[in-house]
């Protein structure tokens, strides 16, 4: 497909100089959208996997610390007696303060503030624990306990992530369509500019594929050039976003750094865009020439 030499002066027209930069811009946007989509996908899978096997039991604060301790001990006793439970661990006060700090600010949560006690329950892999039945049992033994299997929260979060993912996919598709549209426009203009040379090629016996190959080769080269330029600009942007996200994480955001498989997918973007450009140019030329004598 790669045209080693061209009988048409395709690289000399103004459109030839403008196309790589337009493709670079498209690839830059596509890289951001793709990176976002890949990260969200990873995040959703991690949450789904991580939260599906855990429960949180909340014990309402009692009047005295001694009563709190008794209630915690009783709850832990019941939880640890359940066959599906692999581990039941009280979340210590220090960790509880850390979790509340983003909302209440440093030092906002004091000893005076009545805080519920939280027990982190990890289930055995594949174990089925009826959260509602457990809640009833615990409430009967220790009034004021509640069981959260994260189902509602997780479901909403994953639904949100999937929606954003779908939006990112739509953005990628739009970028692909815009790239194809640009290539169609530049190819048609190129066909018009070089109409006479193409007619000469036809009259000496060139098949449509001979002409199309030259346009496709040019589009491939420009797609690759533009794609690499776009990616070169996208990489520092993504690293910058990752750096800022890491700085503001503080327990609010999960790890949002790109893994090797993500970088590999991003590296493939110029190839995909170049392929889109090449195929589009070829189809455009073939369709346009089919209308010529």
């Amino acid at each position, binding site marked *: 497909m790669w045209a080693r030499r061209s*009988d048409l002066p395709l690289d000399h027209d103004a459109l030839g100089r403008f196309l790589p930069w337009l493709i670079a811009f498209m690839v830059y946007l596509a890289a951001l959208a793709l990176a976002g989509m890949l990260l969200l996908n990873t995040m959703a899978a991690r949450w789904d996997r991580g939260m599906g096997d855990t429960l949180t039991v909340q014990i309402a604060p009692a009047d005295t610390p001694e009563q709190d301790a008794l209630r915690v001990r009783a709850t832990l006793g019941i939880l640890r007696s359940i066959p599906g439970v692999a581990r039941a661990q009280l979340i210590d006060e220090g960790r509880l303060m850390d979790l509340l700090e983003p909302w209440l600010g440093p030092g906002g949560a004091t000893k005076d503030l009545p805080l519920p006690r939280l027990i982190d329950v990890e289930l055995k892999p594949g174990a089925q624990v009826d959260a509602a039945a457990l809640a009833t049992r615990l409430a009967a033994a220790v009034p004021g306990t509640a069981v959260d299997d994260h189902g509602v929260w997780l479901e909403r979060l994953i639904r949100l992530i999937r929606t954003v993912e779908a939006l990112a996919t739509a953005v990628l598709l739009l970028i692909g369509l815009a790239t194809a549209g640009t290539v169609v426009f530049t190819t048609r203009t190129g066909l018009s500019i070089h109409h*006479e040379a193409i007619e000469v090629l*036809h*009259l*000496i*016996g*060139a*098949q449509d594929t001979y002409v199309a190959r030259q346009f496709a080769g040019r589009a491939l080269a420009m797609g690759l050039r533009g794609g690499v330029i776009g990616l070169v600009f996208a990489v520092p942007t993504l690293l910058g976003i990752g750096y800022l996200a890491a700085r503001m994480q503080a327990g609010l955001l999960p790890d949002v750094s790109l893994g090797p498989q993500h970088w590999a997918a991003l590296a493939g973007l110029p190839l995909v865009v170049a392929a889109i450009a090449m195929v589009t140019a070829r189809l455009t030329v073939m369709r346009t020439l089919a209308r010529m*004598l």
Partner: protein
Amino acid sequence: MITEGSDCVVRFESVGLRYGLGPEVLQDISFALAPGSFHFLLGASGAGKSTLLKLMYLALKPTRGLISLFGHNMATTSRRQLPALRRRIGVVFQDFRLLHHLSAFDNVALPLRVAGVRENEIRKHVVELLTWVGLKDHVNIRPTILSGGQQQRVAIARAVIARPKLLLADEPTGNVDDRMAMRLMHLFEELNKLGTTIVIATHNETLVRRLGHPRLRLDAGCLDTDTPDQPAAGETAAGAFAAATSGSRAEQSSESAA
């Protein structure tokens, strides 16, 4: 020779052509060219010579009538089959139609490249032909730098490089002097001896008389045939070629200097 029959290289039957809703520029054109024939196409400016040639090299479709090339009825020939037919036709366009971003070499090489000939063979044949038409020192020069006569020779070399079965030339000697004109005519005659059917549209009555080939004469869109005069003694192509070649080097060097 004008013959009837399906083995003709070119056959026109009651062909007419009009542009849009205008009057017919060609009317009821009927003729047939046998393989290996050599014809001059004559006629005043605007008589329709170039249009007739365009119909023959498949740049135009007739509005009526039947055109048959190499036994293929053009009315039923698919667009996909046209490139193969066009490769059998060499065309010297009146305005040369060289690709100005390509060198003389690449222009002449085009028909071979289009036909998928290997580069090493292309190089050999193209350089040989450019040398023959006196452009050995202009192989890598772009047409815009060449004189009108040199461009014309590049156009002729491009038309004949692939040894076409049918050569159509529109005023192929309009920009060269008489010596070069005869030299180029000899090239056409050599091709003709190898079996190429040749049609040359020209105004050069002297050349036509000298070579004495049959004539197709267009007058106001209608075609007539002329009986050729016998070429005058000493005015045969071979004689003229000998005269042309003796002076070709001087001509070539003067153009190189230009």
